[in-house]
């Protein structure tokens, strides 16, 4: 990996992250550092590369331009144009993220999870910054794409890590500040990933309906079906049984959207619905699991997806907090002053495994599902609303805008 060539950081950041995943290894981690904490801090404090880059203005790309890069027929000049744009834009955005992390309170910054994210962003920033500035041949472009690919995959678990970190730091920061920080972070992350993945996808042109990572012929029914299968499996692992998920409405709808975004949103909502259905059924002693119903609609400007469950609903007093970060109804392990201890049983290990599998991670517990899903939904001008019928179930209304000319001026 090219990262090992960068001065000062001898180990790949992924290694750091793996080690951080379990508590007992923290001690080990501290002792295996090739340089002292003191030394590293001095290096970072006087290194003003980050500040210089962060002060450069972001040149937002409009959705139109981004799509234009990837519109067939793809020529090498367009490819290089895209590569150069990405090469110049990403360091600025990454630097801003690093700066935001640097501005967190010191105690929060020393939390191992937060720290690992900080290092990750710093490393990525350094990596791109030190890549040759002009990309004008295939060789360089290939290397650049390879580097981007690795970077994107190394950043894929940022959200769960951040979530765990902030859960532990809840008492050191105002929830208002945490919320603002996370909103900015996630919003920026979506944009950065969009730019990076768009460019990477230009090298994998196998699907004619795709423009980068935007699918012009996305079938929600198919996507919901695959998400349902994933969530149902997760539910079986966690609870032993799972409710059925039915899809109805205007099932032949197709529209233009980013599949990963929709996948994420739907998975989170379905996870909530399934979990609620199972737990409520057990609570009231119901015999069968009622279905979770997903209805698709196609309107003039929006695609509508409604997820309806009979999971008992959300009590009125909790309704204002469901979109807060770290609000969860899962009993927490005693990490940073939590409440009750969950009983260890033979399935705990399996469910912990489920926690690391797939897209979002656990079926529940981080408290990030709903707020995140809403940010994704709003990104391209959509919306997400939740109605609770306390004592019966919940309805979630998702409205997504087609990615078309009307979004031409949307700045990423």
């Amino acid at each position, binding site marked *: 990996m090219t990262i090992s060539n960068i001065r000062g950081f001898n180990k790949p950041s992924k290694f750091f992250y793996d080690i951080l995943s379990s508590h007992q290894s923290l001690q080990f981690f501290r002792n295996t550092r090739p340089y002292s904490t003191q030394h590293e801090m001095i290096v970072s404090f006087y290194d003003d590369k980050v500040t210089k880059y962060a002060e450069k203005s972001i040149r937002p790309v409009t959705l139109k331009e981004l799509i234009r890069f990837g519109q067939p027929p793809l020529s090498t000049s367009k490819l290089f144009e895209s590569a150069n744009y990405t090469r110049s834009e990403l360091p600025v955005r990454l630097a801003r993220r690093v700066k935001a992390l640097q501005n967190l309170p010191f105690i929060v910054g020393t939390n191992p999870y937060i720290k690992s994210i900080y290092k990750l962003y710093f490393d990525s920033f350094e990596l791109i910054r030190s890549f040759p500035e002009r990309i004008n041949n295939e060789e360089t472009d290939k290397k650049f794409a390879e580097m981007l690919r690795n970077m994107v995959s190394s950043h894929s678990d940022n959200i769960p890590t951040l979530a765990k970190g902030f859960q532990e730091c809840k008492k050191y920061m105002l929830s208002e500040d945490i919320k603002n920080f996370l909103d900015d972070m996630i919003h920026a992350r979506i944009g950065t990933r969009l730019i990076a993945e768009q460019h990477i996808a230009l090298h994998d042109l196998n699907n004619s309906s795709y423009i980068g990572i935007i699918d012009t012929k996305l079938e929600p029914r198919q996507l919901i079906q695959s998400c349902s299968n994933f969530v149902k499996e997760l539910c079986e692992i966690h609870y032993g049984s799972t409710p059925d998920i039915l899809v109805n409405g205007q099932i032949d709808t197709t529209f233009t959207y980013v599949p990963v975004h929709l996948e994420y949103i739907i998975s989170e909502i379905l996870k909530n619905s399934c979990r609620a259905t199972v737990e409520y059924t057990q609570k009231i002693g119901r015999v069968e699991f009622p279905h979770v119903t997903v209805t698709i609609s*196609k309107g003039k400007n929006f695609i*509508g997806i*409604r997820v309806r469950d009979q999971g008992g*609903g959300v*009590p*009125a007093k909790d309704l204002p907090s469901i979109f807060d970060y770290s609000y969860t109804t899962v009993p927490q392990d005693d990490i940073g002053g939590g409440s009750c201890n969950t009983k260890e049983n033979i399935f705990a290990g399996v469910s912990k495994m489920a926690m690391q599998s797939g897209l979002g991670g656990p079926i529940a517990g981080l408290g990030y599902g709903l707020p995140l899903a809403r940010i994704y939904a709003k990104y391209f001008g959509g919306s997400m609303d939740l109605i609770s*019928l306390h004592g*019966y179930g919940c*309805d979630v*209304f998702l409205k997504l805008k087609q990615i078309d000319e009307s979004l031409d001026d949307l700045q990423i």
Partner: protein
Amino acid sequence: MVPRVQRLNLHWSRQVNHSFRYKSRIRPFPYFSSPNSFFQTIKSTVQSRAYSPQQFYKNRILDQYVSQPVNTITLRQLVVFGRNLTEDRLLKSGNYVRTELPIRLAHRIRDFQNLPFIVGTNPHIEMVYDLYWSAFEKLRKFPTITNLDENDEYCDTVKGLLKEHLVVIPQLALGISECSQHLHPDQLDRFMNTMLRSRISRRVLAEQQIALTENWNDPGYVYGQDGHDGYIGIVSTQCKSGEIVQRCADMTRNVCRTIYKVEPPQVLVDGHVDTTFAYIPDHIEYMLYELLNNSIRGVMLKFSPSLKHVSEPPELLQQFQKLERLKSPDISKDPSSIYPPISVTISSGPTDLYFRISDQGGGISDEIYPHIWSFASTPTLNNKFENFVKVPQMAAKVQEYEQSIIPPTLHLGIGLPMSKVYAEYWSGGLTLFTMDGYGTDAYVKISRLGNREENLE
């Protein structure tokens, strides 16, 4: 009671349609036989014109009442008070109503006075303003009620006023509709919502007192929970969730079947259908009726667009229907299931009761959706309440539709905002979500415990 006055040529009533169908029907409500006789009565009972100099100086009296706060009550208080009625209690409640009504009226009159002057000169607005002033004068001069006879007299006065004020909703609607350009939509909505909420509250107090008095005077009436289906005045302690929905559904389906001559879609009720709760049946029935009506009509008009022209001459209707049959989709031949059903789900939580009405009527388009709760005219819908010229009186009760006092094919445009006012009156709520192209979901939330104060904001 109605003095004879010369027939006046009132210019703004020119548009009124004189061929009222309801003339020949049974009318349980004390409706006037024709609009003109009614307007004459009003004009004659009005003391002075709204913008005369005397009125300005008389306003000092209003200040006294406006400065007094409103004493709100809860549904539970109404029930408990009326449950074990004694003469003393009846007089006490009479005096409460006697003092409350002028205060609430005064607050609303002040709202009128705060409207822009140009709005106040609109004849419809002016009429309601005059009505309110004369009612205020009448009510505030009433002395303390000390015995049952005085209570009866008071109830008669109030009954007369209720009857007179049946024109308020149509007149306000017409006036507001004409004044849309002079008021900011938010201001307009706030004004109308406050007016309607206060109106409901005054009518609840008045009708409750009248009902209690009538029951007291009725020798055969038995109090307590066992008597008369659990009614205490106008409140029913035995409202059954499933039954109410079924009743409203049957009512609206009958109306639709009669007009459109096609079997309307089924209404399937599920969830907690056996919940018993205390509420004012008029309110809940109005809300459910309006929402079910919207849903059923929506579904029928989506799948059979020719029904939109039902009020037109029969030949034209047949033409439309013929065209439709040529391009109609493949639907089952079973007449009862030609339309997708409406599904009503009842959910009973510890503190609230929810009714969810789900239809597949094609949804509400994005241009209309932001304005469904608004009383203001929108860019696309210029004269929102123009049909009110055909409806001189409105009590906002389901019986008016049931007995076709208000022509059922008329789209009044006030169903949704009025239902919202009813829902929010006892601190409940009404929300609507739509899936453009598929259907709409309406959520009615009402408080189960009856311990919420009246919401008059």
